[in-house]
């Protein structure tokens, strides 16, 4: 792969005082792809992005841009476009001057003539659909507009790589969604190798060609959005991507048993302690007068009904289509049994999961859950 990678990250480590921000990270980024660095805060994703940009120096390791070692190169020489989380627009310059900045600071011998700079800036502002705001100052723009100015400014220097730090975090939900689609379309158009940092799994899964899930300075998994979601490489990845219910369990002869002996399902894994995850939409409820669980809370959210189900000492999340909820005709307080249609069982939290299957399709597990069991939400 190394000869085709646009950026190759080789064993990068970085510490801030006693805190290990990055621990021997390896990653290849292919030309023209859009990669998401996804992880909770403190996972090292922003540090990695800043190291790629040259804004931070790694303690060890190399960054290769193509065949070239960029580790020793100054940020300004890396031909990297960086979009900051809070945009970092030059507040005393107009939108036009902001975008033109990268072209004006080029040494005179290589600098474009004044009119060519003006042409390029005008084109870029059209690309981000902000031509009409050229004379405004950053403070006079909305968040989404600032974001696009920051993008145009980064693109002005014709970078080899575009890096975006939490590009949508500072925007409200509606603008965020629009801008996300727009950025994806823009990427299809310019096909620039791009890396963005996010802590929002929806953003990563929707936008990226590949997702790099990070935790505590390490890469947990690299893969296509569909793969990291359906085949997580570790318990952390499963938990981080989407809502899930966490159940402490015990494997004995291929059967997944809860603390008090209730059967959750079958699994092909060695005997021993394990943790099972079942996503809210993978849990079925079956009304029963003597059921082991009961409905604590129900709320309708668009086409889905979300339930909080009391089960032993724990609360589990269950999600189902509105139609099914209506057909079941049950209400808060009613007792029921739960059944897992599917799930992931981790004998070792750092290794991929074994698939949890119903013992007989439709089987219920009617047992209370041990203390550690609980609900995980992201």
């Amino acid at each position: 792969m190394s000869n085709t990678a646009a950026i190759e990250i080789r064993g990068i480590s970085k510490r801030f005082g006693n805190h290990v921000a990055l621990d021997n990270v390896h990653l290849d980024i292919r030309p023209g792809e859009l990669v998401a660095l996804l992880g909770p805060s403190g996972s090292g994703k922003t540090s990695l992005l800043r190291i790629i940009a040259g804004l931070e120096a790694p303690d060890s390791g190399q960054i290769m841009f193509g065949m070239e070692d960029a580790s020793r190169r100054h940020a300004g020489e890396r031909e990297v476009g960086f979009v900051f989380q809070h945009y970092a627009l030059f507040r005393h310059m107009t939108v036009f001057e902001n975008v033109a900045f990268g072209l004006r600071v080029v040494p005179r011998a290589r600098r474009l003539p004044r009119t060519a700079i003006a042409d390029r800036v005008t084109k870029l502002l059209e690309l981000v659909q902000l031509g009409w705001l050229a004379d405004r100052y950053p403070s006079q723009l909305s968040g989404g507009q600032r974001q696009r100015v920051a993008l145009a400014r980064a693109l002005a220097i014709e970078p080899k790589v575009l890096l975006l730090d939490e590009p949508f975090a500072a925007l409200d939900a509606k603008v965020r969604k629009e801008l996300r689609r727009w950025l994806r379309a823009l990427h299809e158009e310019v096909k620039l190798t791009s890396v963005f940092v996010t802590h929002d799994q929806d953003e990563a899964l929707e936008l990226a060609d590949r997702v790099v899930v990070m935790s505590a300075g390490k890469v947990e998994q690299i893969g296509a959005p569909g793969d990291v979601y359906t085949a997580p490489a570790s318990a952390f990845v499963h938990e981080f991507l989407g809502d899930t219910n966490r159940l402490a369990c015990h494997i004995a002869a291929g059967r997944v048993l809860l603390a008090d002996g209730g059967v959750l399902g079958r699994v092909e894994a060695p005997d021993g302690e394990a943790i099972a995850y079942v996503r809210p939409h993978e849990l079925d409820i079956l009304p029963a007068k003597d059921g082991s669980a009961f409905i604590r809370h129900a709320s309708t959210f668009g086409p889905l009904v979300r339930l909080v189900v009391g089960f032993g000492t724990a609360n589990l999340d269950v999600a189902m289509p509105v139609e099914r909820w209506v057909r079941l005709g049950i209400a808060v307080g009613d007792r029921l049994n739960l059944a897992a249609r599917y799930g992931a069982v981790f004998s070792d939290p750092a290794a991929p999961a074994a698939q949890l299957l119903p013992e007989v399709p439709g089987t219920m597990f009617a047992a209370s859950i041990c203390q550690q069991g609980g609900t995980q939400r992201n």
Partner: protein
Amino acid sequence: MTARGRDGALARRMLIGLAVVVAGIVLGMPLAIVLVEAFARGPAAYLAALADQDTLDAIRLTVLVALCSVTVTTVFGVAAAWCIARFDFRGRSLLLTVIDLPFSVSPVIAGLVQVLLFGRRGWLGPFLETYDIRIVFALPGIVLATVFVTLPFVARELIPLMQEQGAEEEEAALSLGASGWQTFWRVTLPNIRFALLTGVLLANARAMGEFGAVSVVSGHIRGATNTMPLQVEILFNDYQIEAAFAVASVLALLALVTLGLKLALERHQSGTHANEERPT
């Protein structure tokens, strides 16, 4: 309006009145007296007092000293503020404390230190004498003493602003290919320009008005090492009251101009501040 509201309004008026009266007695009256006394014998006598050769020399020296020391203070202030706001290094809080030292140390001590260091019997005295360099009782000593006194003004004005603004714009400039100098001139400096001007104005006012530190190192040589505040004292001690007040009035006017400029700057700044706020 409730009873409490009325009480509040009354208390407010009384406090405002008190503040105005105190400010009038302590600040306004002396200023008025300076001007009244200076012009007591009419404008002709006033101008004649200022046209005195020693006085003119004192004015010239004061301007020269202010120019030199404010330049040093400004360069130091920008550099120190940049270091402190941008980097976390060992000794950072020590540097912050040292910058504040002139606020807490009597200026006379600053002057005395110069004499002890650079004077004929000072630590470096023999060395300086060998190379025939005069610091104490000469321009360099006066400038050094003034620099000591004015050192915190620019740095103190800049540090909170630069800390609040953060380094992101500078990082953006660097990643767009700007050199360190380009980043400083095109991004850092425009962002701090108003605070910098305010700091320079305050430092300048202090530099021109400094008495204690300069008094120790100057040696009071008329026409050579006398600054305006020293000249005022000499004239006063010589019973040339009108002349003393005339020079004092020039100093007071300089101070008023400084304050006026500062006020205008603040007005301008608050007018544009809404436009310069960082997005959150």
